[in-house]
């Protein structure tokens, strides 16, 4: 009986001891390597496909942003004249086009005064924020929070202008204009707005002369520009409907610019 009992625990213990160690070692070492390499390859595949997908989407929805920044001092000066004094623009409003690879495209802003750019809208927006801060400070209401609020107000105004132009173009059967074109056209609004706010800073009463003038100039500029965009993009030309909607765009500039020109932290006005 003792002889029988003795070997049985001996049998059990050696079986238990060697099994875990040889099983654990090879699984932990090569297993982790395999898992890491697998995840790495899969991750690279995901990242590669996602970056390509994002690139294709960006190229579909947005035209090349680089195109809108091909500007120089001369273009900026002349464009500011056109935006601020559209009545004095004696030339035409049509953009210069050039065939590139069988596809019709337009010349960059540096070669065409009528091409939209994003430098002037961006700088005009920044100037608007700075002038708003200056105006707040002169009236004793300057706080960084108020300036941040006016930044948001400007962004909302820009967005509303983009939506206005986009809806107008869509309703007139011309939805092929690139989004950045619309953003640029909407951004030119801030150029005249800066002039009005600057006048308000220098002499308060000049604001009541400058803001209607600014609304009128912006309206005229947008009407002439949108007319060219419609003529270039639209397949059917319904003159009466076009005229009514373009007049609506011009008239919509008055409440929008008056709202943006009122430098205050109140949301409604």
């Amino acid at each position, binding site marked *: 009986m003792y002889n029988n009992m003795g070997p049985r625990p001996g*049998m059990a213990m050696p079986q238990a001891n*060697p099994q875990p160690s040889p099983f654990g070692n090879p699984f932990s070492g090569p297993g982790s390597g395999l898992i890491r390499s697998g995840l790495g390859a899969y991750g690279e595949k995901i990242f590669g496909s996602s970056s390509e997908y994002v690139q294709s989407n960006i190229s579909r929805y947005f035209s090349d942003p680089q195109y*809108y*920044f091909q500007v120089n001092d001369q273009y900026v000066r002349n464009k500011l004249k056109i935006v601020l004094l559209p009545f004095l623009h004696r030339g035409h409003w049509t953009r210069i086009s050039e065939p590139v690879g069988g596809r019709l495209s337009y010349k960059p802003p540096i070669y065409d005064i009528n091409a939209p750019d994003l430098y002037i809208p961006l700088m005009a927006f920044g100037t608007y924020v700075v002038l708003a801060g200056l105006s707040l400070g002169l009236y004793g209401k300057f706080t*960084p929070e108020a300036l941040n609020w006016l930044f948001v107000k400007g962004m909302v105004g820009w967005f509303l202008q983009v939506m206005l132009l986009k809806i107008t173009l869509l309703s007139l059967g011309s939805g092929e204009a690139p989004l950045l074109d619309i953003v640029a056209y909407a951004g030119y609004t801030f150029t005249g707005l800066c002039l009005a706010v600057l006048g308000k800073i220098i002499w308060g009463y000049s604001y009541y002369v400058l803001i209607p003038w600014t609304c009128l100039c912006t309206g005229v500029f947008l009407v002439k520009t949108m007319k060219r965009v419609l003529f270039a993009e639209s397949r059917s030309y319904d003159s009466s409907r076009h005229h009514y909607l373009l007049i609506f765009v011009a008239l919509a500039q008055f409440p929008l610019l008056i709202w943006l020109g009122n430098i205050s932290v109140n949301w409604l006005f």
Partner: protein
Amino acid sequence: MTKDFAVPPVVFPSGGSSGGANVQQRRFPATPFQPPRPSSSAIPFMSFDIGSAAASSATPAGPFGGTIASSSSFGGGSASFEDEEPLLDELGIHPDQIWKKTRSILNPFRINQAVHKDSDLSGPIFLYLALCLFQLLAGKIQFGVILGWIVVSSIFLYVVFNMLAGRNGNLNLHTCTSLVGYCLLPVVVLSAVSLFVPQGAGPVRFVLAALFVLWSTRACSTLVVSLADGGEEHRGLIAYACFLIYTLFSLLVIF
């Protein structure tokens, strides 16, 4: 052989006893056959134990070696303690370089561009904290605002420059943040000077602010255009972006 002789005597008494006793005695001989098999199987188990023991002895050799390596590294570290770099160098802060850059900005008419080729962020952080401190002395708590606006301004200038420069633009965000931060020095000086100008003197504060902002704008646009490629023909446009940035910070000081 002796075992074989022992078995027959057991059989003889069983033959004399009853049948049941015969059956029991038959079972008894079966058990003596089993013990030698487990003993023989025990031997390979023992050999397995020996093998596993060898493996287990080999396994601790790794940690032993690691321990030796770590102890040697400890020894090496302690051995080269005198040769370690200063703490500031390890942290990437170079006070002499910061002083050179700051002094180059202090001269508004001739800016040494070569000293700014290596961009760093410790100098700008020092200037941010100085500006926050002066604003605090003026009674304004604007730590978050200043740091937030610094980030937005750097990204703004980075986007504007690289868009204007086109394919040739090679201004990276680190260099841009460094330059914007260093050129904030005139605004910091304006903040310090404003502590001694009474609040009622509006025109004096505006004139002072205008001078310091133009100083900052000239320094920043000169450095950005000289250090990065593709910006020479857009100097005026880049200068206007810098002007907007420093005017914004001067508004914090004036009002």
